[in-house]
């Protein structure tokens, strides 16, 4: 081992991620960030101080052994890095791409105190992609404990729970209402951020662990959680149905054709592949001028999808300023590069009718920032008499979602602003923090086994 690394001896600059140039990528749905190659990964791994405090592990919602896998990358032992990662996280290719690392592991990285933090997410993605490319699957030795766990929803919460339960030895069945597993990873996140093929590859690994995925199954309607426990032999049920219910603003004109939720736009485009219409049957016609309301990650995705579907002009309308914008800085930067026009401190008050049920424009009002509100951000207040009309043909609302309305709706935890994606104290959570979660019924405890599995109870 070379001599001890210090903040002065490590590469000072973060290794840049190769990207498709903006003018190219705006014409395709291929990934924007192309991923590290081996050499780049090696270089970036040298930036980790392997500090004894290991704040990154604490910053990770699932407690991945981050210094451990980075050390292995440094030793050019990529398989070893994969083994270290999958000790806690079976989905590195997904997490490396879409976790908000700047609020988690990278946000607390020691290097980040004086330089840019180690690019942990990019390194994780590198290991995950290498594993997919090489076909590596770590199927740990699993001793069946004869407990059966049902998981409702195959999104990030569901698959993370499925992985842990399967490793603990449970028989796991994941139910999904859509026709393919992945939940929001699949319907929400566009291919240019997370290609579907990566999701399929990671789900495939869970199948190899013995997890069963049952699609086309709407729990609560096809059967209830009570039935799962009483009739179907499940010892525990995990409800990870997510926050899928779109918020619409309730302003005049919001039911016009040409006004839709970001969820609808993204589902049509990502899951139903409207971008390939008419080879795929679901249409998603994009008009010339699109206004997307909101400035979260979903709004950024929606705007960038619109550009790729052929919109000539895409406006981002947000009632607060850039400082308060909830999207990841990288996403805002990408959207800007691709030509999105940002209108900060602007709020829609009315959508204007073209007389045939469609949209001809939108009336907005300027905002200014007042006192901080309960979210800690300064509250936007309208500036009297500052109304302005903008000409647009399509309005997409990306102003948040609330927990999916289902039989489980009251059991889902969310932050005070109903954002399930940002629970207030991420570092304290051991369940994946990016997702809502609730365990109902009798949770299995494989080590102590206070209960007999349902199968044994019945036999007794």
């Amino acid at each position, binding site marked *: 081992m070379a001599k001890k690394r210090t903040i002065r001896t490590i590469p000072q600059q973060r290794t840049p991620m*190769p*990207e*498709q140039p903006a003018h190219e990528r705006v014409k*395709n*749905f*291929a*990934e924007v960030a*192309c*991923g590290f*190659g*081996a*050499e780049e990964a*090696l270089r970036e791994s040298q930036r980790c101080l392997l500090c004894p405090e290991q704040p990154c592990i604490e910053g990770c919602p699932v407690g991945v052994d981050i210094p451990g896998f980075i050390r292995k990358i440094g030793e*050019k032992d990529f398989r070893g890095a994969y083994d270290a990662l999958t000790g806690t996280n079976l989905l590195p290719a997904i997490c490396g791409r879409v976790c908000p690392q700047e609020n988690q592991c990278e946000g607390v990285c020691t290097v980040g105190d004086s330089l840019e933090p180690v690019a942990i997410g990019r390194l994780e993605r590198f290991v995950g*992609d290498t594993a*997919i*490319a*090489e*076909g590596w699957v770590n199927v740990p030795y699993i001793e069946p404990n004869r407990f059966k766990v049902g998981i409702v929803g195959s999104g990030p919460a569901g698959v993370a729970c499925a992985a842990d339960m399967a490793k603990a030895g449970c028989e796991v069945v994941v139910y999904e*209402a*859509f*026709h393919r597993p992945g939940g929001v990873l699949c*319907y929400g996140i566009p*291919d240019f951020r997370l*290609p*579907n*093929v990566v999701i*399929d590859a990671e789900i*495939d690994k869970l199948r190899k662990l013995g997890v069963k995925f*049952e*699609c*086309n*199954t*709407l729990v609560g*309607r*096809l*059967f209830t959680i009570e039935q799962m426990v009483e009739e179907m032999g499940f010892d525990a049920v995990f409800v990870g149905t997510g926050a*899928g219910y*779109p918020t*619409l603003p*309730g302003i005049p004109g*919001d*039911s016009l*054709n040409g006004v*839709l*939720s970001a*969820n*609808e736009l993204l*589902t*049509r485009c990502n899951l*139903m*592949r409207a971008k*390939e*219409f*008419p080879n*795929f*049957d679901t*249409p998603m016609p994009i008009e010339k001028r699109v206004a997307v309301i909101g400035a979260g990650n979903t709004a950024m995705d929606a705007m960038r999808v619109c550009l790729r579907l052929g919109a000539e002009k895409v406006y981002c309308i947000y009632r607060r300023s850039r400082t308060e914008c909830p999207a990841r800085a990288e996403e805002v930067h990408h959207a800007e590069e691709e030509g999105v026009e940002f209108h900060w401190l602007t709020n829609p008050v009315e959508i204007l009718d073209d007389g045939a*049920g469609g949209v001809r424009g939108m009336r907005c009002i300027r905002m200014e920032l007042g006192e901080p509100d309960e979210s800690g951000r300064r509250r936007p207040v309208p500036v009297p008499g500052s109304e302005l009309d903008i000409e647009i043909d399509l309005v997409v609302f990306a102003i948040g979602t609330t927990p999916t*309305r289902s039989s489980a709706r009251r059991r889902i935890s969310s932050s005070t602003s109903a954002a399930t994606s940002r629970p207030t104290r991420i570092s304290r959570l051991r369940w994946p923090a990016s997702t809502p979660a609730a365990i109902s019924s009798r949770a299995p405890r494989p080590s102590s086994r206070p209960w007999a599995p349902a199968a044994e109870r019945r036999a007794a």
Partner: protein
Amino acid sequence: MVETNQGAGFRILAREDYSDVTYSLVIRHPMMAKAAKPGQFVIVMSHESGERIPLTIADFDREKGTVTLVVQAVGKTTKEMQQTCKAGTALYALVGPMGVPSSLGHARKVVCVGGGLGVAPVFPQARGFKEQGAYVIGILGFRTEKLIFWRDKFAACCDELIMCTDDGSAGIKGFVSNGIELAISKHPDIDEVVAIGPPMMMKACVETTRPHKIKTTVSLNPIMVDGTGMCGGCRVKLGDEVKFACVDGPDFDGHKVDFGDLMTRLRRYADKEKTAVQRWSETCRMRDQAAFGARDPAPPAASSETPELDLARAKMRARRQAPPGATGQLPELPDPIDDVLGG
């Protein structure tokens, strides 16, 4: 043991054609047959590259483990299904039962109105009311006698059956709204009217019952994607309120529904629908002319999962070939993973 239906899709056991545009499919799904209640619907995808369309459950048989859907060939998907969905084939996806079941309440005398295709979804409600001991008056409307279906099924569960045809070829000459007037004049004590059919018909029905202040329930079928309350595409106006037909409905108080808004929203993708139908008809014509014996219409563009994965692996491997330590170049742009799926 509870059986779920997975893997090879959802098998169609029987099909019946009622006219050159209307057909029924009997699909095996024991669990759904067990769970389904009157008024609920399903979302269907006929093949992997298809769209998700909502269809009301027209009948269910808990013993045989089947659900029945009645389909009218109006757009690309339903026309294509008319050609491809035969007994022995399977639907790619079928999810449900969705929506809030109809409240059959304690009504003692009800009128169940079905117009055209709407005759099918109103059937489970008529049967449900009958099973609860209500006096059920069925009113079925068709354009002409030749299009009539399920008259016998209704005759078996209705105390009175009024047939209406636009041309008078069967029953009374006139619309279902004339039938409702007839029923109201004969029975002043009607508790509830349930009307299902095209929006114009339902609108006519609620206008007929409004002066009599008779509770009128309609079942709305707007454009949907997921059917679980996630996209908001199916939002409908009820007075000042906005509701999602998929999770708040599909049954609503007809006197509150803004039918004008519903009809406008149903035209949202009219242009694209036309394009799809045209393109599909051309494909069919070319196929018929070529007569190469290929029975299926344009095959799904997406291939099975495994080759995709293999290809993606190959591409990812290619990108990562530079051995550790070698002075490799940056990966070529654009990233090729997605090209694989581009199809």
